[in-house]
């Protein structure tokens, strides 16, 4: 945008030496370049993934055998609360924003994000927000321990950490909203000429929908936590029964945000997988338009199903029936997506590089998470599943081999475009197989634990649950260690074979028309009509 003085050399790397990045920390601190900011987002989310992962390891170590092993139950509750907040807001969401920053301008032929300075802000808010959140671990009264859902009145019993928790959530929300506005403006206004909305690649499409969801629901969360804050410090009684408020109302407001939030974390994953499967099947994505409609219907339905998280709060019959039917309906567009992926593979010519492996595991394991989701939708049965390990198994299946695997798949897929070299395929495959095996050992037994009656968020349990807990803990340590292989892949990322522009034999799309590594500036003049259109055939 600011560099359009150089024209006609859109993809000429050398022509940009004079306009290259600043040296040292200034390059990163003041960066307005979508690629640099994308990289920072991705690295930040990886760091958070390991911090949140370390907390998960603590949780699994505590639960490996019955009895209290380490610290008090309050610390255990802090760990579950912080693990969730960090993984949701610190790892998964920023990772997708990082991928969006890197890839959306490249996919639509734009020189940068539409609002580069705001882009800088929305990233740099995050380290501040998470420093605040993590600092609560050292405060009197400990870190927040009321669950990431922050239900009052329990969350109001938090010690000194309480206002810091609220402030951190506000900052995360602010960052997400700014990022989402940037994505929408970029996609709507900066597409290559003749790239109509329905010609957009699926990753860009799912992000457009996600960004609208973010803009619609993050402010609702901000409102909810502000009410908590005023209830605690300014004498309001939104959620305090004594003052005429209603604690259940918080749950309604929270889940009005919370359910779309679930799709915020999975729609971009659908997008990534919809890019990768066609490439390695050497076949166009099956039913591109119906994929778009399916993603949109999922987004719409996500606004009218929130109370399925609350079937036990005491709801009138009509409410239960409505929320059950609406929830079951989500299975239809989700099914369309899965069937379309399978149809894309059908009669293709598949090869199984690491990104494809992660994507295939995504389709298998996300579908298993979808099945348990369908079971949870059945309200009378949900009474038995609610707040047990069955739910823990369900949402970890959709978030770990779901969202996280899709992020890994995307990272492997685009890594050669970012670095200019192929990553070490053997290490990638080892990373994939260990992750896939251990993720199942971790989370599959949790289904049985939940059905057998183990509630979630407990630091100790009855001895009949011991066997499956031990298996889950072994799996968790294995999964945690496997992720170190990914760090090794990144450290050796530039030691492999040089990649050409197209990188993958079956790849289509504008991002594969720029050199590898993608130069600091790309598409300073919009790509030609012909390239923009043909790159999809």
């Amino acid at each position, binding site marked *: 945008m600011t560099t359009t003085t150089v024209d006609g050399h859109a993809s000429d790397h050398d022509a940009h030496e004079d306009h290259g990045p600043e040296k040292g920390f200034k390059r990163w601190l003041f960066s307005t370049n979508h690629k640099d900011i994308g990289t920072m987002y991705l690295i930040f989310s990886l760091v958070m993934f390991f911090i949140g992962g370390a907390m998960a390891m603590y949780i699994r170590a505590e639960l490996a055998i019955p009895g209290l092993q*380490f610290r008090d139950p309050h610390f255990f509750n802090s760990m579950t609360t912080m693990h969730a907040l960090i993984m949701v807001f610190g790892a998964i969401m920023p990772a997708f924003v990082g991928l969006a920053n890197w890839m959306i301008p490249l996919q639509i032929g734009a020189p940068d994000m539409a609002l580069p300075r705001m882009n800088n802000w929305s990233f740099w808010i995050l380290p501040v927000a998470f420093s605040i959140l993590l600092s609560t671990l050292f405060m009197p009264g400990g870190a927040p321990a009321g669950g990431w859902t922050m239900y009052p009145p329990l969350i109001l019993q938090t010690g000194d950490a309480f206002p810091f928790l609220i402030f951190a959530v506000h900052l995360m929300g602010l960052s997400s909203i700014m990022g989402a506005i940037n994505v929408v403006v970029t996609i709507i206004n900066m597409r290559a000429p003749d790239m109509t909305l329905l010609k957009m690649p699926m990753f860009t499409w799912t992000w457009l929908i996600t960004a609208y969801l973010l803009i619609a629901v993050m402010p609702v969360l901000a409102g909810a936590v502000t009410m908590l804050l005023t209830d605690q410090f300014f004498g309001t009684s939104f959620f305090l029964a004594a003052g005429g408020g209603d604690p259940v109302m918080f749950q309604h407001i929270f889940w009005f945000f919370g359910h779309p939030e679930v799709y915020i974390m999975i729609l971009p994953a659908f997008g990534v997988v919809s890019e990768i499967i066609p490439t390695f099947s050497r076949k166009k994505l099956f039913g591109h338009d119906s994929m778009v409609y399916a993603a949109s219907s999922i987004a719409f339905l996500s606004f009218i199903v929130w109370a399925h998280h609350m079937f036990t*709060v005491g709801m009138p019959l009509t409410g239960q029936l409505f929320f059950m039917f609406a929830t079951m309906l989500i299975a239809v567009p989700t099914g369309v997506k899965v069937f379309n992926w399978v149809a894309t593979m059908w009669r293709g*010519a598949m090869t199984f590089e690491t990104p494809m492996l992660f994507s295939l595991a995504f389709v298998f394991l996300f579908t298993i998470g979808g099945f348990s989701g369908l079971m949870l939708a059945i309200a009378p049965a949900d009474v038995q599943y609610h707040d047990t390990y069955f739910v823990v198994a369900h949402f970890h299946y959709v978030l770990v081999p779901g969202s996280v695997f899709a992020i890994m798949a995307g990272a492997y897929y685009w890594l050669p475009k970012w670095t200019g070299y192929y990553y070490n395929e053997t290490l990638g495959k080892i990373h994939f197989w260990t992750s896939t095996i251990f993720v199942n050992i971790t989370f599959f037994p949790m289904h049985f634990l939940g059905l*057998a009656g183990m509630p979630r968020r407990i630091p100790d349990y009855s001895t009949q649950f011991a066997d499956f807990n031990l298996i889950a803990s072994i799996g968790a340590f294995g999964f945690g260690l496997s992720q170190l292989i990914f760090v090794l892949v990144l450290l050796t990322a530039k030691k492999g074979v040089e990649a050409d522009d197209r990188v993958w034999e079956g790849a289509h799309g504008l991002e594969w028309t720029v050199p590898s590594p993608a130069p600091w500036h790309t598409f300073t003049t919009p790509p030609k009509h012909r390239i923009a259109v043909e790159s999809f055939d």
Partner: protein
Amino acid sequence: MIRKAFLSALGLVAASTANADWALNMPKGVTELSKETYDLHMMVFWWCVAIGIVVFGVMIYSLFAHRKSKGVEPAKFSHSTFAEVTWTAIPCVILLIMAVPAAETMIKAEDSRNPDLSIVVTGYQWKWHYRYQDEDIAFYSSLARPSLEARLPNSGVDVYSVENYLLEVDNPVVVPKGAKVRLLLTSNDVIHSWWVPELAIKKDAVPGIVNETWFQAEEVGTYRGQCTELCGKDHGYMPVVVEVVEPDAYRAWIDTRQDGDTKFASAQ
């Protein structure tokens, strides 16, 4: 490929079956509704298995048959209105088949008419309080002492030596077999949730709000559950124990309770 991962997971599970008394599945329970809930759960489960076999079957076949190393040429199709309409319509039908019995069970669960006795259940951090509405009986129900002592870090007690570790209370709720028991739930501080899997009842106890639910146990026995809504530090240490006894044993219990003897119920 992914199957391998599953098989290895299953293998591990199988290896540990020898010395365990755990359950794999939801209990059928001892009320009409708990059995219906179990049936619903199994129905949806088998539907999922069936759909899974079809979808995963097609996918696995494709993974083996349609690979580049076999020298196949990729097909050109990328759209089929017929296929897309079919796989939108069929799930809708399956969902309808699931929704009807689920709704029926739900309507039955709402029918709290003609209760034989009412018990007010109040959640506290971290114990339960029970009050029998028509009798002069009220008591707290907390984690039993053996568990209480064993749960502490470095207690020196092997938790395996404690019978019903973390699932035993000092004063269980006693109800007669066959009676329709109505529970009125509320809380004194934060939100709790009262759950007994064998009775298929889970209801939140919310401060300032009265929630209602009911059960009718058809078999004598001791049924154990736990608080299922995170309620603070000792959330994991406030179990629920319900003893279903013959009606005359219940009368006898009422009499002793009203005489001030608190020990009857826990006499095994």
